[in-house]
């Protein structure tokens, strides 16, 4: 270190300024810690190098939870949105998912502004090439500029920059996303510190000029009339500003792609990284689903201050000429002018099983990890981890217990438990079906589930907390009112007929009416009286869902109780699994590696069978009896 210059000391240093890095840095600074966030290029702060949207199924839930916990993503997208849509409205509220198209540039500038204005937070354009480790504990970072910073905790959020490599056909370039410089030295040094790395891959489609497209051949996709904000701090949003467009590939497109399979980096064998199944390139789709006659694609605006459009559904690593050829076979895209060709990107990441549930690295103390570096995919997944890594880094250096969200408490809990406990063989994406208790973990009640927790660890602002308390009270009051407010059969005869639901014989409560699938909370206004409060969007939704799904929610609460039984059976961290008779070798190895905190967590480790869990339960029972015998003597 003698030859390097000490540039300062921070409580928390964050490497990376993407969606994970921003949330981590903001959380740490807001919790009162002196924080610095590094990025190779500050133009990359909260950059959206792939799709121009935030949210969607499962992901929308994450954004709401991030918001409820005092994160920034929800607030920022509410500022930068140009169109919003609630997905799955034909289904029940548990799987309603909000998605907003973003003005990418605005998303970046708004987030940057927030960071610039946050006390305790510094931001620096500077490549970090190494971390400083002493006695197994991280203590700083080394810059490319021959200087270093000391820090009590470091958060790694390197996204796809780490030894990034971009593939277009046979052309391979060492590069970060969107033409930014990659981070190569850091990867080598992390390995030297004993952090094993592996390769993952993802891709992005081409961008083209909107003026070169013929929208008359596509189907317009407008935003919702009723625009719903992501953040619980906002009750309403401005107007939709733009549309998306739907069109389809055809046999001709597939023909061009097939004829050029051999020129794809994907099939050429240059790419060693594993790509996600849910985000296949178009050549992958054509190859794997050969009998599918067409694939849909959405043309989405990149922002309001640009004519560039994103071609969703068409990522590719085919050469530029082939890309142009096949894009032009698509109705509406015949004359397209590509501004940025599609590419595949490969990068270094860790096996998340090397992390604790707090997102602290198992090998190096006070080193926290978040985002794509942990093997996930998606802005929202990254932001969620960044937030939790930020919170837990602060708690750790303050000598406090980490904040760990259970699978029964949050999608974030499911996300992190899946990553850390089960690991992943591909970039991990959240899905509502990964969540066992999705009836309870809705996007509409994220604040009721999480804001209190965040307030207690010192992140959620007083303003947010008070809003939450007020909403909670308003909801409870209104639910009680609807339960007790009775209406007579004659008063509602017309109303019931209008909404095509059966007549009643005797008086019925408004709550019971609301339980009928045909009737919404809004509908009740027609027969309600002046005692009906004027509830804001988030509270009204809450009232509706709580009453409508009461019975199912109770069912799920019982499931959670059963779940908690296994989660409550704790396993000591220093338990020697090789001493437990009856465990299969694979199970023994996996358990020793992951060191689950409970039987519940152990049961989710792949390679640990129900039989192994029985062995563990028997072992615990034996230990318990031994302990009791000990006491008796």
């Amino acid at each position: 270190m003698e030859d390097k210059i000490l540039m300062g000391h921070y409580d928390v240093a964050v490497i990376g300024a993407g969606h994970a890095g921003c949330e981590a840095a903001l959380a740490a600074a807001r919790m009162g810690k002196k924080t610095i966030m590094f990025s190779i290029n500050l133009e990359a702060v909260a950059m959206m190098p792939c799709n121009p949207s935030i949210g969607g199924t499962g992901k929308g839930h994450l954004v709401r939870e991030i918001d409820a916990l005092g994160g920034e993503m929800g607030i920022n997208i509410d500022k930068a949105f140009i169109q919003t849509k609630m997905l799955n409205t034909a289904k029940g509220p548990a799987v309603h998912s909000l998605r907003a198209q973003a003005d990418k540039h605005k998303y970046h500038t708004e987030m940057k502004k927030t960071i610039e204005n946050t006390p305790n937070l510094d931001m620096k354009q500077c490549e970090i090439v190494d971390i400083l480790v002493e006695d197994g504990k991280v203590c700083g970072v080394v810059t490319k500029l021959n200087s270093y910073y000391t820090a009590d905790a470091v958060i790694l959020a390197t996204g796809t920059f780490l030894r990034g490599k971009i593939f277009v056909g046979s052309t391979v370039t060492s590069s970060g996303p969107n033409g930014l410089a990659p981070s190569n030295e850091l990867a080598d040094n992390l390995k030297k510190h004993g952090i094993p790395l592996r390769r993952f891959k993802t891709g992005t489609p081409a961008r083209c000029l909107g003026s070169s497209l013929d929208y008359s051949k596509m189907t317009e996709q407008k935003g919702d009339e009723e625009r719903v904000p992501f953040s619980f701090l906002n009750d309403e949003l401005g107007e939709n500003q733009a549309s998306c467009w739907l069109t389809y590939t055809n046999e001709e497109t597939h023909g061009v792609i097939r004829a050029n399979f051999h020129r794809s980096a994907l099939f050429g064998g240059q790419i060693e990284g594993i790509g996600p199944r849910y985000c296949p390139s178009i050549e992958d789709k054509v190859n794997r689903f050969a009998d599918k006659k067409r694939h849909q694609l959405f043309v989405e605006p990149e922002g309001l201050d640009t004519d560039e459009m994103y071609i969703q559904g068409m990522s590719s690593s085919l050469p530029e000429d082939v890309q142009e050829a096949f894009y032009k076979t698509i109705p509406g895209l015949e004359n397209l002018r590509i501004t940025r060709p599609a590419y595949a990107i490969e990068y270094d990441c860790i096996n998340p099983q090397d992390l604790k549930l707090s997102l602290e690295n198992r090998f190096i103390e006070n080193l926290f990890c978040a985002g794509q570096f942990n093997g996930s995919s998606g802005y929202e997944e990254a932001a969620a981890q960044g937030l939790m890594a930020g919170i837990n880094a602060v708690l750790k250096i303050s000598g406090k217990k980490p904040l760990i969200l259970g699978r029964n408490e949050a999608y974030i809990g499911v996300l992190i438990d899946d990553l850390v406990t089960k690991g992943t063989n591909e970039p991990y994406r959240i899905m509502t079906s990964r969540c066992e208790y999705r009836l309870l973990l809705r996007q509409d009640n994220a604040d009721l589930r999480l804001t209190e927790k965040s307030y207690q660890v010192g992140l959620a602002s007083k303003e947010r907390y008070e809003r939450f308390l007020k909403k909670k009270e308003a909801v409870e009051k209104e639910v009680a009112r609807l339960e007790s407010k009775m209406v007579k059969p004659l008063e509602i005869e017309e109303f019931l007929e209008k909404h095509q639901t059966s007549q009643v014989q005797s008086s019925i409560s408004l709550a019971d009416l609301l339980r009928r699938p045909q009737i919404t909370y809004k509908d009740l206004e027609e027969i309600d009286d002046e005692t009906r409060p004027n509830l804001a969007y988030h509270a009204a939704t809450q009232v509706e869902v709580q009453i409508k799904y009461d019975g199912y929610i109770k069912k799920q609460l019982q499931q959670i109780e059963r779940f908690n039984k296994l989660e409550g059976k704790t396993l000591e961290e220093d338990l020697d699994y090789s001493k437990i008779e009856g465990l299969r070798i694979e199970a023994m190895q996996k358990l020793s590696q992951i060191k689950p905190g409970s039987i519940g967590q152990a049961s989710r480790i792949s390679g640990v069978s129900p039989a192994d869990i029985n062995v563990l339960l028997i072992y615990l029972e034996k230990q318990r009896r031994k302990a009791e015998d000990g006491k008796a003597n």
Partner: protein
Amino acid sequence: MEKTIAAIATSFGEGGISIIRISGDEAYEIVGKIFVPKSGKPLANRRMTYGKIVDPKTGESVDEVLAVYTKAPHTYTTEDVVEINCHGSVVSQRRILEVVLENGARLAEPGEFTKRAFLNGRLDLSQAEAVIDLIKAKSVKTFDVAMDQLEGRFSTEIKNIRKLILDILVNVTVNIDYPDEDIEQLTYENLEKNLYEVKEEIEKLLSTSDTGRIIKEGLNVAIIGKPNVGKSSLMNALLNEERAIVTDIAGTTRDTIEEMVNIRDIPVKLTDTAGIRDTQDVIEKIGIEKSKASFNSADLVIFVVDSSSPLDEEDDRIISLLEDRQVIVIYNKVDLAEKADLGYIQGKLTKATILKTSLTNNLKGLDQVKDKIVELVYGGKVKQEDSVLVTNVRHKNLLDEGLKSITDAIEMTKMHQALELIEIDINNSYELLGQIIGEAVAEDIINEVFSRFCLGK
């Protein structure tokens, strides 16, 4: 590492030969210390070798034996296994086991070989349970059913049903998680149709459970009738031995007598009951109470009537207890003059099968009784040798619960409830059926979603 275990694998007691089984990593080494092969060559995999067991401590020869070494993992426990076939005397078995234990093995707990086979993943849960059934098999038929389960036919059946459920779940999941994708929308009509398919399959399997239970646990048959009408004779005829005390003094059978007997390969638990007459005798009164209890729990009641004496109050009392029940009426002693009113019985017991017999003298009609029992077990159908039977109570309960979940899902589908609510019930049944074969849900659904649908940006 698990310790090597050993036990006498054949049933305890005197026999022609006996087998000592040793399983575990050290099995080969342990036997190497105590087995002296005649040929001088060491034990080879899967070859029976002749030699002697010699106690290395004393150098004393214990017994002449045949030993077989089977190498892991292709053994019952998937561990190294050595089996020593020795003479069947109790002394010989015990001495060999002792020597084995002294040289490093631990005595196996009951069922531990099977437990290891299960824990090592060679048997799934239903197969492991089948082994326990095999060991306890009461008749040839039970043995066959257990054998079927061991071979995994029952598991296969469960897996097939789970596959149907998985197909549905995958469709539901993809519809929920990918609302924007170009995939076929799942209609309530289709969902209902698919759920019905699952329901039928579970019901089909469940319908075998009565037969299955009977085959495993035995058919409960209660024999009832007034004293001295020939109940004990019937029982003895079925048992082929004089077990009950047969005299012509009414009230000889003072207590219920239970016997197990195999009738055409079906295990039958016969209960010979005391009559149900008005009596002052305290002991006999207790017997009568027991009679009532035992025929209340019976799968089948055989009501024996003396055709040579008129029906009386006591017969009437029995008849009134038997209305609406599965009954075989044995119209006994038909070689004597007929005095009992058969028409009256037929009028009262409409579901009864009436057989005319003369059991004391020539066992006339006994075959008919046996035929009737077989017919009842197989529900009047020709017995299907190939059908898979549900024989285990745990399995039946899980199937019942699984069926309930599917039925709930169908109801909700009919009401056009939200898909994610219906999914809870479907998923529930998938998990319940998984518990039968000890399989967890894990990542099944998500993996299928991605292998079947073309999704993503």
